[in-house]
């Protein structure tokens, strides 16, 4: 137990270091950009009739540091602000704090990808077990081929195809918004059903493009387990086929469990294409829009949150895995 907490503290500490490294990276990236966006913003505010002091203060609020001071002191103010969870203000949404905007966008991504992830995981793992056990039969081959093909198709191709088929060719689903804007937002049946019907295609895109990966990984994991001695032993002991399948699945799913928790972290940044195609107001879309609008404080904020999600899920994965897999537990 003492070991456990020391390891946890160490992992959290190195996670924080990692966040600081990524934050520094984006800081220097923005400073290095051609046309220096910080100076450009400052000059633009002067042109709008602000005094140099006012403009300097405004830029400081936006980017989290004072323009025209030394690079080292700019960097120190930026990091100090960051540690106080102050990510500055957005340039394109005037006067709104970056943290407010990204926290509003995060749930959209979370719900979209989490639903897709769970659906594809359940179906993919089940299909993977079948594909491995029946790998010499036509059914197993068909499953494997479906997995390889779906795994191979890039997410944006999948999204565009689904969108075309179900919104233009056979228009049964809506497209291009998170919900019907003519319905008053709130917790009522028409609004909720509009939310759901608009989410079907993005979720399906995510689920279909990750299904193949789960299937193939589960299949190869099951095949590895099939060669283990305890399976042979259970066969010799004359255990029922259903029991044997349970043994196999139980042992084969462990490596996938790690991948699953890792995917939860990556899902914040993993739906850039889907959010872009279906105009879903999540983090990926926010990142793209901030680049389009040259809104660099928002860009660094969104990118930072995407990274933090991955770091946290890495730590969680590490510890959950040592709890689930008795071979690693000490």
């Amino acid at each position, binding site marked *: 137990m003492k070991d456990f907490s020391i390891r946890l503290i160490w992992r959290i500490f190195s996670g924080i270091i990692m966040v600081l490294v990524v934050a520094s990276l984006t800081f220097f990236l923005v400073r290095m950009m051609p046309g220096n966006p910080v100076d450009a913003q400052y000059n633009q505010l002067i042109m709008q009739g602000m005094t140099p002091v006012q403009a300097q203060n405004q830029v400081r609020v936006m980017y989290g540091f004072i323009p025209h001071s030394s690079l080292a002191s700019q960097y120190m103010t930026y990091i100090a602000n960051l540690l106080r969870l102050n990510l500055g203000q957005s340039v394109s949404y005037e006067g709104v704090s970056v943290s407010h905007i990204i926290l509003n966008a995060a749930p959209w991504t979370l719900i979209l990808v989490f639903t897709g992830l769970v659906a594809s995981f359940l179906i993919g793992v089940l299909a993977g077990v079948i594909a491995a056990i029946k790998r010499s039969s036509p059914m197993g081959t068909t499953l494997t081929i479906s997995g390889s093909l779906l795994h191979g198709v890039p997410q944006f191709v999948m999204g565009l195809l689904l969108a075309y088929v179900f919104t233009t060719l056979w228009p049964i689903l809506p497209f291009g918004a998170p919900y019907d804007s003519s319905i008053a937002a709130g917790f009522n049946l028409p609004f909720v059903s509009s939310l759901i019907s608009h989410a079907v295609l993005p979720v399906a895109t995510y689920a279909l493009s990750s299904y193949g990966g789960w299937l193939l990984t589960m299949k190869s994991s099951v095949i590895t387990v099939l060669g283990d001695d305890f399976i042979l032993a259970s066969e010799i002991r004359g255990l029922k086929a259903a029991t044997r399948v349970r043994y196999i699945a139980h042992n084969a799913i462990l490596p996938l469990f790690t991948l699953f928790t890792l995917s939860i972290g990556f899902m914040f940044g993993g739906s*850039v294409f889907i959010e*872009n195609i279906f105009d879903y107001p999540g983090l990926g879309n926010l990142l793209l829009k901030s*680049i389009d609008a040259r809104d660099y404080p928002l860009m660094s904020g969104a990118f930072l949150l995407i990274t933090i999600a*991955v770091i946290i899920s890495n730590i969680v994965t590490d510890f959950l895995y040592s709890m689930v897999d008795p071979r690693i537990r000490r």
Partner: protein
Amino acid sequence: MNAERSIQSPKLYKTAAQSKQSFLKTAWKAIIRKKSRFAGFIIILFFTLMAIIGPNLYPKELPIDSNAIYAPISWKYLLGTDFEGTSNLALIITGARYVLLAAALGALFTVIFGTVLGLIAGYFVGWSDSIIMRVTDLFLTVPSFPLLVVLSTVWNFGQPLAMGFVLGITGWGGMARAVRSQTLSLRERGFVEAAKGLGLSPFYILFREILPNVSSYIGMNLLTSITGCIYAEVGLFFLGVVPFHVNNWGVMLNMAVFSAGAMSSPTALPYLLSPLLALLILTLGIVLFLDAIDEIFNPRLREDV
């Protein structure tokens, strides 16, 4: 030193050459064993040829024809035309070079960075290992596609080489980890100990003794990272975060969806479908071919038993 040279008997080299030849033979056998694999091989060959000779078939500036804007599919325009009346087929064929060259370079850089760093970390252990592994952790943690999107604000992706370099820089982490763990197990083996005993230089041991033993893994990774690179690169153009001064399938997709309204207007549909079709066929080819690669490198998957 001379005495040491003579220890490497010429016979050893011969067997290496022979094993290379027999490797190609088993690879070829695995490819032609199934029709689907052979089809995949042909598709990849076809796209490679398209990338190499394609741009030479057309003038540097593709002809535009204001009378044939969004022309339907016909004998003259096998895949229809785009918003300026340029043949979609010509756009696909000439665009293939950037798409495939950048992906090949990206995969090459990924594999080179990953292999060299993984070999060094795994062989020397100690401080170089800790430094390399911390950096690897960083690159494995930072989500690579969003990072590419952010990097697109400062990086000029006009040349395939520049694109490939960034794809390699963001993607080598997993490769380095895997090569390191294989090197760690190989460095304890007899032949490495023997080479050390002979006083051969560490770099000779790394690149002449250990590298050949991980080469099959490297070859497999080269192919799989090509697909990853194609998607990332075409995807960046599709999202429109990269300036459009090159002909690329992603640019076509972006223009078709976001400017031409191909999702709702049937006239612009061929413009959307042609790059989608090219990507799908190439994907299919790679998927079918990877099946053969799987069998070559992973004997456990062979189902003859």
